[in-house]
């Protein structure tokens, strides 16, 4: 709030309050993870600790190869994420950078728009 005098603080001092908060959260999560071990019953048997496959005995490892499409989505995500990151500094100073800055940002987005269009046409954005 600007009604208070501007206090010069360092980046570290700004983020230090996260530490006690994080400790409280970690404490709660740790407690919730350990309590059932003390309170819950422990009767193990082979059927109970088998993976669930609708009642049928599990067949083979679950870790089989899956669609490469997930990988494609992850790569496209990274590339567009980096695009957004490059645009953040522009968005923050949009008036200072003026029309020239806007044109430069449009060029930047347009080049990546080509990429999106390419992915679109090649059917990468369709899920089979």
């Amino acid at each position, binding site marked *: 709030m600007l009604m208070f005098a501007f206090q010069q603080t*360092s*980046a*570290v*001092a*700004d*983020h*230090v309050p996260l530490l006690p908060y994080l400790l409280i959260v970690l404490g709660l999560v740790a407690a919730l993870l350990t309590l059932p071990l003390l309170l819950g019953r422990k009767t193990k048997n082979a059927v109970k600790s088998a993976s669930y496959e609708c009642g049928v005995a599990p067949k083979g490892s679950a*870790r*089989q*190869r*899956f*669609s*490469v*499409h*997930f*990988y*494609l989505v*992850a*790569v*496209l*995500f*990274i*590339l567009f*994420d*980096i*695009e957004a*990151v*490059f645009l*953040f*500094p*522009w968005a*923050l*100073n949009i008036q*200072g*950078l003026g029309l*020239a*800055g806007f044109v*430069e940002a449009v*060029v*930047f*987005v347009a*080049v*990546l728009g*080509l*990429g999106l269009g*390419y*992915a679109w046409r*090649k*059917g*990468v954005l369709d899920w*089979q």
Partner: protein
Amino acid sequence: MEVLERVAFYVMAVLAVISALLVVVNRNPVASAMSLVGAFLAVAGLYLTLNATFLSAIQVLVYAGAIMVLFLFVIMLLNLEREPFDLPGIGRIAGFGLSVALLFSLISLALGAVARPETSARGGSGAEIGDVFFSDYLFPFEMASLLLLVAMVGVIVVARRRKPEEEEEEQA
């Protein structure tokens, strides 16, 4: 540096080194990847001690939040299991020697009269980075978009599932 920054630096540095070690020591590749996320978070903390707030947030957003997700997907896709323990072969010994040499050269660089990282006089906020991006570094900035485009086209060409009619074309 003030006391707080000094303490934060050492805590983050130790955390970064420990999690980096865990990346190498873990036999389970998924656990290694998670340790690398920890290392990236610690490095983000180190950026904070340099007052580079924007860079620090980007480190978490891009490295810990995006790139490592891809790593994880690739590890799962390739179905990497636990790394078997082998006796060191020639390749490993050579690799070890190289990394020791690299470590020593880094230490000597750090101790020598090399310019240390300093807090920029202009500060590390997003708006200031924007100023520099759109004036001094405009060309690299626009080139970055081209680089991303090349990466995008490349991955689609390599990994996409071809339509049946295209398969036939390629075989013909």
